[in-house]
């Protein structure tokens, strides 16, 4: 698959926005979907649909095999040790809630501490916040440096003897900082602290190897990874899934049910209560195929070139201020324009078909720290080109013209 032709695989780009070509720079929010993923959903519903795991008839058996096949594909894609370490959820948010809830129930006591960072998305803060009230725990935030990075030292400084879990992002959805997660994991483990990585922004862009990183939990949103909406993946080491209590209760996750009590099923069923997102899981198999066909190394190279190009272009534009300056930066370009609010920028860019996001990007703590109420964010996917970034820059200039009238 030629990286320069990838755009053709995404049918959305055949459409116009306000009579302009779509310049989609909002992939950190959600990625567009390749044709093969959309086709798979269509074919499954029109030719093969059945619920999974519950009936013995032909369609049900076929659907169950397809469903489990995606689990195995995902296991290989992130190099997990065991397919049962892959739990399907409705999104990364649910994945983190699952861990916070079950880990909190079983292991946290009053006075215990959770260590987050100032870069965290609300989805990796609010679930832990619940435990403050419920369990009387404390939440600490490792501080960013002036470049908007989280260093190993910043984590090390923030660990206390009471730290019971470290939960950090892989790649900041605002500054683009890529955290040294392997080093942080080994630091955490040297102090016997388990670690959760919010991999929402890591998974679509970076090569993943769970056995190499060695983290305890890794949360993924499939819709940011060229997959369908309504689906996430929780990677968790088998020892945790075996030890933690179940999360939601319902059909499919039990072993035996009596009026007096219930015994729970084995992995992977234990954490997949009720009818799952069958069609989405099956279609997500195609997203993995799509990523494999291009090769994650090629994606990393392409996106890192684009990111550098985007930084250059925006740095040359004197009115643009980039947010954060991390040495190891992923596909995110957040910026401000003097005297023009981010929401005004986004609205004006939209007229040209340039889709970016404006606001605090679910990172209010970070924005408070930076003293910014809102930023504009252009974020990249595999389908973007240098041309897209040139158009972004042109539109920014138009923006200035309108406001300088």
């Amino acid at each position, binding site marked *: 698959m030629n990286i320069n032709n990838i755009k053709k695989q995404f049918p959305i780009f055949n459409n116009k926005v306000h009579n302009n070509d779509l310049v989609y720079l909002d992939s950190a929010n959600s990625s567009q979907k390749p044709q093969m993923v959309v086709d798979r959903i269509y074919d499954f519903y029109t030719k093969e649909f059945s619920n999974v795991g519950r009936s013995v008839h032909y369609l049900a058996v076929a659907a169950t095999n397809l469903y489990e096949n995606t689990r195995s594909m995902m296991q290989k894609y992130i190099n997990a040790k065991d397919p049962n370490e892959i739990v399907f959820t409705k999104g990364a948010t649910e994945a983190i809630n699952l861990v916070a809830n079950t880990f909190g129930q079983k292991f946290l006591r009053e006075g215990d501490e959770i260590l987050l960072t100032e870069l965290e998305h609300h989805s990796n803060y609010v679930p832990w916040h619940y435990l403050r009230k419920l369990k009387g725990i404390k939440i600490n935030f490792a501080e960013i440096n002036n470049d908007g990075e989280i260093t190993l030292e910043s984590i090390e400084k923030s660990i206390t003897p009471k730290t019971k879990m470290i939960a950090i992002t892989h790649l900041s959805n605002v500054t683009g900082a890529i955290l040294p997660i392997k080093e942080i994991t080994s630091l955490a483990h040297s102090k016997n602290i388990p670690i959760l990585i919010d991999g929402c922004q890591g998974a679509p862009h970076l090569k993943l190897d769970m056995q190499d990183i060695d983290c305890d939990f890794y949360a993924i949103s499939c819709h940011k990874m060229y997959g369908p909406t309504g689906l996430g993946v929780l990677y968790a080491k088998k020892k945790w899934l075996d030890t933690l209590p179940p999360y939601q209760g319902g059909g499919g996750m039990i072993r035996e049910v009596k009026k007096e009590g219930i015994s729970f099923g084995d992995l992977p069923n234990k954490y997949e209560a009720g009818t799952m997102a069958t069609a989405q899981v099956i279609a997500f198999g195609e997203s993995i195929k799509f990523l494999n066909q291009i090769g994650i190394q090629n994606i990393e190279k392409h996106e890192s070139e684009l990111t550098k190009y985007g930084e250059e272009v925006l740095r040359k534009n004197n009115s643009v201020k980039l947010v954060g300056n991390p040495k190891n930066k992923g596909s995110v370009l957040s910026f401000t324009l003097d005297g023009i*609010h981010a*929401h*005004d920028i986004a*609205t*004006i860019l939209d007229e040209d078909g340039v889709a970016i996001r404006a*606001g605090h990007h679910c990172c209010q703590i970070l924005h408070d720290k930076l003293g910014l109420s809102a930023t504009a964010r252009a974020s990249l996917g595999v389908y973007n080109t240098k041309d897209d970034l040139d158009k972004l820059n042109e539109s920014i200039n138009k923006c200035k013209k*309108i*406001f300088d009238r």
Partner: protein
Amino acid sequence: MDLKDLYQEIILDHGKNPRNLRKTENFNKDAKGHNPLCGDKVHIFLKIDENKNISDISFEGSGCAISMASASIMTDLMKEKKEKEVKELVEDFLQMIKESPEMKTKIINENEKTKLMSLSGVKQYPMRVKCATLAWHTLTSAMNNSQEETNTEKFD
């Protein structure tokens, strides 16, 4: 739809040079408003005299051009209005922003209506409606002398 519909001269002017951006001395009513999605913030100060007239109105805050312009135009308009008139104006404006093609009130003149109508461009941008209405909702809170911040619950 043309972008000029939204970012008209008048909005850019009020957005960049907001009128009444200060704090009324000896204000006797005030309220804070916050639009957490955009980060827009506004704090409105009122001085209401014994006849229930607004003898002074001002605001402090920060936000996008639409929200700043809206607060600026609104405060300009409300000066010397009676409490009852304020209520009518707020309702009429919100109605116009939501669905009505024009303002119906007879309290203000055509020239003033035109100024307010310049904010109607947000109708094409549903996500921006809150920017245009924040100051107006906050004014209502201030009139009711509500102690709580408009649109912001207590911390949990």
